């Protein structure tokens, strides 16, 4: 009898942790999202206006969030694919050094945004290059391309990981066979390697997309106040904490969750076993 209960006793704390600090708050978030403004705190007034508004008024911010995240994820895949290929096939010496350098973006987007600040602002190392190009420092820093580049730096390791896992499952023997049958390196790449690691490309893109749509520090520090590049995470915080419109903020947060969950679902389906 005791043995039968043992497994439930062992898993109970974990389930309690997940329910208490994730499922209960998530249910609450949903409940708040269908009430009007801050009314949940007093007498809840049910409404769906928040969801309507989050599409009509904040549709623009949605589009910003999604295009910036998608662009950064595209950049990631573009640069991470050769990187992961070389790391799994060519690089032997210093491989561990390169691996540990990839840990830096994991520490957080805040430091990336901050470092790029110093890089671009007047007096920084890039200032004279920018001046040479005829750009003002603020225009260069607070612009969509630099925010996208920062996001791309932030999620590069995730794309590398997903693509690397897929590539390490492709046997190098297959490539050698293609080469010995007369295919050149380019033909081998496009007809053998890329098709076989396609799942990694997809999951790498989705992975960095999923992280990018939740990014907060980079968008807010690199032009968060500019209308053309406001993103949802920044809006959610200011709507909740500055405008006190908890209903609307919760509705936006729920919508963001739905997008992220859909992305992760496809990503897990595509990745075939990479853990994250």
């Amino acid at each position: 009898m005791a043995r039968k209960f043992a497994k439930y006793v062992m898993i109970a704390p974990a389930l309690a942790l997940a329910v208490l600090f994730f499922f209960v708050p998530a249910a609450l978030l949903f409940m708040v999202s269908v009430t009007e403004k801050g009314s949940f705190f007093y007498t809840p007034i049910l409404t769906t206006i928040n969801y309507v508004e989050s599409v009509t008024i904040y549709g623009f911010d949605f589009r910003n969030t999604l295009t910036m995240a998608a662009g950064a994820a595209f950049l990631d895949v573009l640069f991470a694919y050769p990187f992961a290929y070389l790391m799994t096939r060519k690089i032997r010496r210093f491989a561990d050094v390169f691996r540990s350098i990839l840990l830096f973006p994991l520490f957080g987007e805040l430091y990336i945004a901050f470092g790029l600040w110093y890089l671009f602002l007047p007096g920084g190392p890039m200032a004279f290059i920018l001046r040479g190009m005829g750009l003002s420092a603020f225009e260069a820093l607070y612009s969509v391309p630099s925010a996208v580049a920062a996001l791309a730096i932030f999620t590069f390791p995730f794309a590398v990981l997903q693509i690397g896992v897929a590539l390490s499952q492709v046997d190098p023997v297959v490539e050698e066979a293609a080469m010995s049958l007369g295919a050149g390196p380019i033909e081998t790449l496009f007809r053998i390697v890329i098709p076989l690691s396609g799942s990694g490309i997809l999951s790498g893109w989705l992975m960095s997309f999923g992280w990018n749509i939740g990014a907060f520090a980079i968008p807010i520090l690199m032009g968060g106040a500019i209308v053309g590049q406001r993103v949802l995470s920044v809006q959610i915080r200011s709507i909740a904490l500055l405008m006190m419109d908890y209903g609307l903020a919760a509705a936006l947060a729920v919508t963001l969750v739905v997008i992220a969950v859909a992305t992760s679902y496809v990503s897990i389906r595509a990745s075939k076993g990479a853990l994250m």
Partner: protein
Amino acid sequence: MRYEARERLFTAAAYLYVVACCIVMLLPFGVTFLRSIAFTEGFPFVSIESYTNIVGHFWPRVGISVNIGIATVIVDVLVAVPAAFALTRYTWKARRVIYLILTAVWYIPGISYALALILAYYLIFIYRPLLGFWGYVAAYSCGFFPIMLMSCIVAFRQLDPSYEEAANCLGAGRLRTFLSVTLPLIGPGVTAGILLTFVLSFNEFVTALLLSGPTRILTAPVKVFDDIQHAGMHGFIAAEASVLQIVSFAACLIYLRVVGTRYLRGTILI
């Protein structure tokens, strides 16, 4: 000979590309660090003045962040090791569902999770005592629990159950087997989860930003953000950001020296 030369050229190009990517990855930290040691006025171009300036007001914040990180790691280890043991060593009808319930939080954007948590802390009266140090610990131990669980599950899968069976045959009880056979053997695998949980909760920013209002506790990353918003570009902020990254990287380096990359492969390293 021609083939060899081409091969060597290709290898050189490969290293060039990888090093270029790594430089871009290191660029934000490098620039921050250089700014933190730069001395703008006059001859000694390098100074540690920025670092001595932040001792008084910033180190307590780092202390808080380290404490939160350690408390999170302890909670997560205590909860995740038994859970992973139960998931890998017993048969479950609904294993996938349980696994999904336990790891669901990992797929939620930080801002949504943070908003949900502060709403819960405000609105549900039994959560009220959590508006403080333990609120952070609770948020992070739940938020980063999936990564600890994944590491533990990988560790248990790599451990052959026959060791445990042998210990059982030789007369050790279940608890004794677990404590003196299983635990020492999965230890190294669990360390990967410990490292990641510590580094992630040490640097966590969005949840901490939303919680910093009601709890009046500023963790180190939030302090950096606060200073950026109030003071902008100053050497001392660069020093703060550098300190946090150096502490995180030192934790990773010590780990890599002691344990190696083996257990981090596939979770965050290729």
